[in-house]
């Protein structure tokens, strides 16, 4: 006689799985990765591979020998962290720094909290900020993008557009004087500018973002509210004094803005769960980013802003509840 199974309902399950979500994210990152290979060449592949292998290795090591729990490498979360970490560093970064970054991302930011789903901060971002503070020289020497079609030229380093503007403005120059040093807007969009591996091409990142929204991996609320906040904030400054403030589009498509808004801030684990919370979270990230960019010491502030708002996530989860059924009856109640 066959032994029947007894369990509570529901007896069917949709086809969602953690792995599916993670590999969806990986797929969404492919365009940005291809652009980086196009502009930064083989170095970009080196950094990505190294970061992925290191992240997965540390995850395996810690799960096997420290936590002594099940090995969940194939859920893809270490892979995502690895790619995101690579996206956040310059392509000329020495290998040993990447490995340190992977250890920080997986060991410190993820596993020490108990593994997938329990971390408060986005692991890749923790690693990026850790590296930025520990190795400021290596982390801010950005290779100039040279299309792969023009052959393998020697790597020349140069500042990012944000750094050019920041230093220029601090030195008292006006925007029109700086314009000559900056790439054209079309270059920003397709990614021909100095910057971290994955952050350069706004178009590729937006493509990935649209894919993820379509597949319901991320919600539109977080990226939209970040970008709108940044746009409005920088727009106000620009309207006040266009000579000494870059225009809002500049802020939207330079630096890690797109990467942060689409891939980093939307990390499920460290972002709020409800629509209201997500909107406030996005607003906070946009605001903090602009405060850091305009008045802070660093030219770029997206990572710090996201990490700060990550810390506010539990609070936002508590404060913003979903709309409960029955809150608005729709008629005067029968008395």
């Amino acid at each position, binding site marked *: 006689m066959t032994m029947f199974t007894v369990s509570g309902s529901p*007896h069917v399950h949709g086809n969602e799985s953690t792995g599916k979500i993670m590999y969806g994210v990986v797929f969404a990152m492919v365009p940005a990765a291809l652009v980086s290979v196009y502009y930064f060449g083989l170095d970009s592949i080196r950094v990505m591979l190294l970061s992925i292998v290191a992240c997965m290795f540390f995850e395996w090591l810690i799960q096997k020998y420290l936590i002594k729990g099940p090995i969940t490498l194939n859920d893809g979360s270490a892979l995502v962290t690895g790619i995101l970490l690579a996206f956040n560093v310059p392509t000329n970064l020495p290998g040993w720094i990447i490995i340190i970054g992977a250890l920080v991302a997986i060991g410190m930011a993820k596993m020490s909290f108990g593994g997938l789903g329990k971390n408060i901060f986005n692991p890749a971002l923790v690693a990026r900020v850790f590296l930025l503070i520990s190795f400021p020289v290596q982390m801010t020497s950005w290779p100039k993008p040279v299309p792969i079609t023009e052959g393998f030229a020697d790597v020349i380093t140069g500042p990012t557009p944000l750094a050019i503007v920041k230093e220029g403005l601090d030195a008292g120059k006006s925007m029109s004087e700086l314009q000559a040093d900056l790439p054209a807007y079309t270059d920003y969009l397709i990614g021909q500018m100095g910057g971290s591996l994955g952050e350069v091409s706004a178009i590729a990142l937006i493509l990935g973002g649209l894919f993820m929204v379509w597949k319901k991996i991320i919600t539109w609320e977080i990226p939209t509210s970040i970008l709108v906040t940044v746009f409005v904030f920088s727009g106000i400054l620009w309207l006040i004094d266009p000579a000494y403030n870059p225009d809002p589009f500049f802020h939207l498509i330079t630096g890690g803005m797109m990467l942060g808004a689409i891939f980093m801030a939307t990390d499920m684990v460290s972002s709020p769960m409800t629509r209201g919370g997500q909107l406030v979270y996005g607003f906070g990230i946009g605001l903090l980013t602009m405060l850091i960019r305009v008045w802070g010491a660093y030219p770029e502030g997206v990572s710090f802003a996201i990490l700060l708002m990550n810390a506010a996530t539990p609070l936002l989860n508590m404060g913003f509840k979903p709309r409960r*059924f029955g809150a608005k009856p729709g008629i005067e*109640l029968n008395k």
Partner: protein
Amino acid sequence: MGILKTFALGGVHPEENKLSANAAIETLPPPKQAIVPLGQNLGAPSKPLVKKGDKVKVGQLIAEAGGFISTNIHSPVSGTVLKIDNVIDGTGFKRPGVVINVEGDEWDEGIDRSDEIVSDISLNPQEIVDRIKQAGLVGMGGATFPTYVKLMPPPGKTAEYLIINGVECEPYLTSDHRLMLEKSQEVIIGTRLLMKALKVEKAIIGIENNKQDAINHLSQLTKSIDGITVMALKVKYPQGGEKQLIKAAVNREVPSGKLPIEVGCVVQNVGTAFSVYEAVQKNKPLFERVVSVTGKDIKKPSNFMARVGTPIQQLLDAAEGVPENTGKIIGGGPMMGKAITSPEVPVVKGTSGILLMKKEESSRKTTGPCIRCSRCSTVCPMGLEPYLLTKASKLGKYDIAEKEMIMDCIECGSCQFTCPASIPLLDFLRLGKGKVGHIMRNRNKK
């Protein structure tokens, strides 16, 4: 047709798998031995009126209501009472029941067994409710709430709409669908009876638009009847939930912890409407019902008119046997049905279907860690946060669970259906609901 209505919050789209949709209702012969459990409704079990050795006829009252929320039970067969003893129910628990040895098929004289459709309504509202109460009607959708209780609004409250639930949003099940196609006249007369009993002018028959034939058929028949509209609804689970259906049909939300009458609505199942017709117009108490027998591997997915007390095995045999590859038997649909421990248990008033799951479908996936994707919260039709309630219930933080409105959970299973980490969310929600309910009842007592 315009934009189809549906409920606003959450919802999922499980595979429909309505395998038995085209199988006409077959009447099953009475079993050799009928096992009639005494607790067939939500609320108090019924009290037996017969004793060992008594001769009973089909439709004879064998147990009377054991409290306000309780129902009468009538003998589904004719024969001799073998014993009144503990009988096994679907969950494997032994609960009191009447076992009857079947001899012949002699019906009670009062029952009108002709096929003629009686469409004139001669009774007044109170008489209709009394007939329904007498006949032991319960909600046929599966919750088995005594029907007459719903028909007696508390003092000061009046109903405005009667909503007939023909949604059948559960995958696989087709019993309501078949009733609407084959017994459409009866369902409509039943609806009119319910309208009269409730003294309402407006009735809406809500049907999901995956049952286009039923929508067309009923629309045709109700064209000339004032007050009854057939409303096609967009397919989305759990639209058959009372609160969701009210939201979809008349855009009102039943407040937390309240009954539909608060927003002037009463919801009855299509199956109930049919039984109301039989009880009131034909004087036939509730002792048989339509049961879908279905499953991906089953040879002949069918819809049977089966007597209460028929062992499920007999239905499975009539559907050409249990496939080799069966891993789970479910009483009801795959989203809210209960797993049955053995095919020996009988059909009861609330059995809307028997679903056989293949072995590979039967096991749950391995549970992973919660990645806080908030999908459970997004699909929750009640706007709850299942991940949070699960955690609260797991840790025994019932005060938090109560504050986060765990009692509003309708146990539809959408959260668990959608969870990428396959966490048994509903298991813990049920557990927490049970405990919180217990705590709240104790508090009210004090």
